[in-house]
C-alpha cells in the first residue's frame, strides 16, 4: 500500500466507488467525475504513484496543453461516494487494478464499484442515448434491473473496466460497467447528451438530487451547432439524415462527418 499517497486521512465504514478512465471515448469518464466534483465540491483525498505503471517516454499534448498521467481519488462527503479518475496504466495492469481495490477496501470499505465508459455508437445525435451495462454479479444485476439500462452481450478483447470488474468479483465486491453510447461523430470531442444520461443514472442510484440546468444548456448549444452545420452543409446534412434513417455510411463519409463536426466544436469554423 506504500504506492498510495494519502492526502487526507479518510476511513469510511461504507462507500461506493465510481471509476473513470481519462481520455476515454467522448471523455465521458472525465466529464462525469468533473460534473460530480463540481456539484458537490468534492475533495481530492489521495493518489496512486505513477512510477512503474506508466512509460514516461514523454508527455502527451491535448488541446495544446502538456499532460501527465494521474490516478486520483476524490471524496463526496455527504453521499459516501469515492471517485477514482486515472489514466490507464501502460504496464502491470494487474498490479495497478489490485492496488485500486486494495485502497478502496482498506480505506473506504467500498461496497459497490461502478465504472464509466464511452461506447462508440452508429446511432445519430438525435436519438436517445443508451447505457449498455456489464455486471460481475447476478444478484447485483437483478437489483438494478429497474434502471433504464441495456444488458450487453459481447466476446472479445477486454477493456480495463472489465478487468477491474473481474478482479473485484474475486474479492466479492459487486460491480458494474456503464458503457454509454456516443454517436461516432461526437466521440472525438464530447457528447453532453451521453454525459447527461450517465449522470442521471448516478443521480437516481445515489439520490444525488442533481441540477441539470448547466448541462441542458450545453446540450442545447451542442444541438444548435450541429443544426447550423446541417443547414450550411448539404452533404453533412445528407450524411446525418442517412444515419437517422438507419443507413450506414462508408468509411470515407464517416471520416468527413467526424472531421467537420470536430472543426465546428473546436471553433475552427466560425458560426
Amino acid at each position, binding site marked *: 500500500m506504500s504506492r498510495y499517497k494519502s492526502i487526507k486521512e479518510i476511513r469510511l465504514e461504507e462507500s461506493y466507488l465510481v471509476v473513470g478512465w481519462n481520455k476515454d471515448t467522448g471523455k465521458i469518464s472525465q466529464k462525469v467525475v468533473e460534473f460530480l466534483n463540481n456539484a458537490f465540491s468534492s475533495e481530492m483525498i489521495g493518489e496512486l504513484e505513477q512510477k512503474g505503471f506508466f512509460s514516461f517516454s514523454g508527455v502527451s499534448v491535448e488541446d495544446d496543453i502538456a499532460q501527465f498521467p494521474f490516478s486520483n481519488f476524490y471524496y463526496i462527503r455527504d453521499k459516501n461516494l469515492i471517485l477514482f479518475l486515472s489514466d490507464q496504466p501502460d504496464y502491470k495492469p494487474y498490479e495497478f487494478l489490485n492496488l485500486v481495490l486494495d485502497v478502496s477496501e482498506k480505506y473506504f470499505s467500498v461496497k459497490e464499484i461502478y465504472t464509466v465508459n464511452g461506447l462508440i455508437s452508429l446511432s445519430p445525435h438525435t436519438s436517445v442515448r443508451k447505457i449498455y451495462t456489464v455486471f460481475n454479479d447476478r444478484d447485483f444485476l437483478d437489483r438494478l434491473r429497474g434502471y433504464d439500462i441495456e444488458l450487453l452481450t459481447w466476446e472479445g478483447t477486454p477493456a480495463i473496466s*472489465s478487468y477491474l470488474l473481474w478482479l473485484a468479483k474475486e474479492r466479492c465486491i459487486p460491480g458494474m460497467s456503464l458503457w454509454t453510447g456516443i454517436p461516432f461523430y461526437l466521440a472525438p470531442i464530447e457528447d453532453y447528451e451521453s454525459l447527461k444520461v450517465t449522470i442521471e443514472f448516478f443521480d437516481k442510484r445515489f439520490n444525488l438530487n442533481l441540477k441539470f440546468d448547466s448541462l441542458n444548456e450545453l446540450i442545447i448549444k451542442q444541438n444548435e451547432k450541429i443544426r447550423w452545420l446541417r443547414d450550411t452543409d448539404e452533404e453533412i446534412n445528407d450524411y446525418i439524415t442517412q444515419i437517422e434513417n438507419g443507413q450506414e455510411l462508408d468509411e470515407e463519409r464517416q471520416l468527413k462527418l467526424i472531421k467537420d463536426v470536430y472543426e465546428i466544436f473546436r471553433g475552427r469554423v466560425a458560426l
Partner: protein
Amino acid sequence: MGIRLYKNVDLKEPFFIVGWPGIGNVGLIAVDTLRKMLNAEFFGEVEGYEFFNPRKVKIKDGLLLNLEFPSNKLYYSKRGESDFLFFVGEEQPKRGVTSKYAEGEEAYNMANLVIDIAERFKCKHIFTSGAAVSYIHHTMLSKVWAVPNDDSLLPEVKKYPDVVLMSEIEGRGGQGFISGLNGLLIGVAKKRGFKATCFMGEVPIYLQGLQVPYPKASRAVLRVFNSMFNLDLDLTNFDNIVLEAEDKINEVYEEIPLEIREQLEKLKEFDYIKRSELQPLTDENRKRFWDEISEFLKKGGSKSDESL
C-alpha cells in the same frame, strides 16, 4: 501468482522442455509436437495474471462470465528410461504493448518461475527452442543453432544432426543474442545452477516479419530431440505439414517482384557457415531488400482494436 499442480507426479530427473511463441513459432511448434508425440499428460499450470493482459472477455446478457488469460501449461511423460516435463506457454510476457519480445521484470520473474519448476522436479537438463534468423533460402534445409549455458555441454550438442554453434556462423565469432524468454531462461538457469540448451531452427531472413509458422525449422529441432533422446519418432506426418507450408510460401514467393526475387535467389549460393568468397549482400542491399520484402509480405493484416 503461482504454480498450480492438479496431480502428484513422480518424475525421475526429467528432461525439461520449454516452448514459447516467437518468430515462425519455431520453438513452440517443435516443443508442442514433441509433447503430443510423447503423449504427455497435462497436470498443472502457471497462473498468468501477473504476466499477461487478459486476451478475451465473455459477456452474456449483461453478466461478465469469463476473462481468459494466455495459458502456461505443464505436461509430463514417461518414456522408456527417460522422464520428460514440458512447459508450453501461449504467450511471452511483454512489457507494455509495444515490445515484441519478453523483457524486463515480468520476463525475469517468468523465467525464475519456470526454473522453480525445474528445481521442484530436480530436472537434469532444460531445453528451450526458438528461431535463428539466417541468410538462407526457404527451399534450403534449416540447420539448428545450439547455444548451451555451459561449455561442458558443447561436445554433446555438436553430436546431433545439422547442429551448428555460433562460432561456426560466418562473421559472428561465437557471439550473438537470443531474444526473449528462450534466451533468458537458459541464462537464469545458468545463474541458478541448471544445465540448459537453446536449439534454434533457422528461418530465412526475409520471412522473419511474416507472422506465419515456419515448420521446416521446427522439423530440424525435432530431429535433434529425436536423436538426442533416442525416441525413434515417425515424423512423416510432420513432413506433410512442412511441405504444405513450403507450397504456401512458394505461392507468395512467386508474387515477389522479379528484381527482389533475384536477390533472394542468391541466398541459395551463400554459404554462411564456411567462409565464402561470394558476397551477394552488402549491408545496404540487405536493408533495402529486407525493407521491400517486409513491406510486400505484410500487406493486408489489419486488426480490430475494439475492446469492452
